[in-house]
């Protein structure tokens, strides 16, 4: 998959997340999920998890490259 195609997929997924974030269908729902979590909160927590997955995909298929980039793997000495 080329990077342009990857970027288009990520743009599409981010737009989808933005639409799903505006969960008007949950506005009147007060029933808790798992017995304690308000739907308004549970749905939006799901959006946070989905966002993380989309951004993971972005690092795999749409990450930019730079001439002077030094690839890193894991922690550096400063992280320790």
């Amino acid at each position: 998959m080329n990077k342009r195609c990857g970027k288009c997929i990520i743009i599409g997924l981010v737009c989808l997340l933005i639409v799903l974030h505006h969960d008007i269908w949950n506005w009147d729902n007060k029933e808790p999920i798992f017995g304690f979590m308000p739907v308004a909160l549970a749905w939006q927590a799901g959006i946070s998890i989905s966002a993380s997955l989309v951004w993971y995909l972005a690092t795999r298929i749409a990450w930019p490259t730079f001439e002077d980039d030094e690839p890193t793997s894991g922690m550096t000495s400063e992280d320790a």
Partner: protein
Amino acid sequence: MTQLIIISIYLALLLGLGFFSSKLFRGTSKDYMLASHSIGPFMLLMSLFGTTMTAFALVGSTGESFKEGAGVYGLLASSSGIIHSLCFFVLGVKLWSLGKKHGYTTQIQFFRDRLESDRIGILLFPILVGLIIPYLLIGVMASGTVINSITEGAFTTAFAEYDYGVPPWMASLVICLVVLTYVFFGGMRGTAIANTAQTIVFMILGLITFVIISDKLGGLEESTNKVLAKNPSKMMRSIDPADIDSYADSYKKWIVLAQYEYAKAHKGLALEPADEKAAIAAFPVAGPAGYLKKTRGPAVFAKKTGMLNNLSILDQNLALLIQDNRYEMPNDSIVLGKAAVDERISDSSIMEHHEIMTFPRLSGSDAKGLAIFGDFVGNPNEKLASGRNKWTRKKAKGVFRATNWAPEPPHGMDPWKFLTYFFVPLSVGMFPHLFQHWLTAKSADSFKLAVVAHPIFIMIVWVPCVLLGVWMTSATDPISGAPIIAAHFPPNAVLPAAVKALTGPLMAGLLTAGILAAIMSSLDSQFLCVGTMFTTDIVSHYAGKDRFTDKQLITIARVFIVLIVALTYLFSLFEPRRVFTLGVWCFSGFSSLFPLILASLYWKRLTKFGAYAAILAAAGSWIYMFADANYAANANYTVFGVMPVATMITLTTIAMIVVSLITPLPSKETLQKFFPAEE
């Protein structure tokens, strides 16, 4: 006292960390400001996250969900998960690359170069520093509130007017000094290390807080069931019919109280002692120290026996406003009648509650509370004759508000307001301290972990805070059955009050250290950033690069930081605003400049005149709307029903595009420098 000792130990440890990081300091201004571009993925994630999650995330989110319900997470947390990472990805990585290539340290250096305009710095510098001050204010204010609330009763005789705890002004001052010290010693490297350590501390302690408090409240399901029973609207974003009924009933009863108190004070109404005694005995609810019986019992009696029937419409409206502490009867009203009172007060129709609420609350109500409940107030570790602990001054003020002010009308979340809140997290793209953090990265790949993990980290911090805020609307003391947090409680104090009420002194101390960690992990970056901007964009830029040595530049940066912190500290001594509201205004200002940073990276046609127009439109619209919202005092301010930030961004974008299209392009050299592949 245990809490105070733990907080002191934590602050001492932090100072030790500052001294340790000073050993790693390489002595150059580049190392002081950018840690020599050496920060790897894990520390970049922790410092970016620690910097963006401040008092706003912990104290603000809990207080706001206490007021507005579970929908608060969707307003800013989930949208931030999408937008913050988007900014790291779309702006951060590219700016890091340009910064490393061309030697930028600050945003203004980049804009000067990209827009071929020296004066853009003169325009931007005061705006960016001016917007950082309210951001700093959030942390400084919240640290004072938190430490004061949690240390109530720590002293036996000192600081009685601060409930025998550390005064907020002193607590804020200590926090400022601690952060200043470790920033001074460690620079950016010290800040990144402290941020990482503090982010770990506040995430772990935050989760422990949540587990302990939910257990004390009877478990997850029990806590939520109480909300469903008492305040169902807090579980959703619209209004539950049960809340409307409950509010209508409470408001009706409150009107009777207001009319009775007014008739007593201004119309000479006085019950016969025997009637008053019987009325008090007959009133069914036992309120705080019998106060509800004493006030509401006679009011119900007066209403039932027709004693309030002769109040005119003007009297009835005045009664409501005075009871809600929104109006005081003018001295000459007896002589002048209607002519003496505010012309907005109707004498032809009873004012609705929303009309009453357009009058801002007057100061002085707290003094009334202290006067009424003065006999109960004292050191909270001492006992009253009844065997219960003495009240704090905060409790006396809170009980007065809860028993005298009108009940709050239930309100949902407007879908348009919710939608346009999405613009607020765009502020991350223009935070000068985040720009500086981006440039510390060792490589572009260092950003990957931050981009992916940021939304999950936000969730880990915000979900417990929002749940806690929602639960506190309905949580009651298992023994007395009284609400743990009363109505009209100051939102900024909900989290520390809950922690204090539901955990022991040891845990309360540790959890407070966690809250302070979140606050300080943002303050440090902001302190460092203002110093960097001043030395780089003003001092070095105008005096010449070689005019000062590295050591002198670091000293100049430190002096400027102290001046800004002193200014912020002075502001914090004035009347506090809701942390969440103040935060949203500050973020809105940065967000309004987002189109500029985006266009400067991705739109060749952007010109310096377009940039000037954008900055002026952003600053002008922000100042106008901030003043129109009574300087953040009006927490529900909107423009055309949407968040002000939406209007600001629209105006900025239009001004930038229109002016750029009619003014000359930047030079070919500049375009080649910033858009090499497309030239």
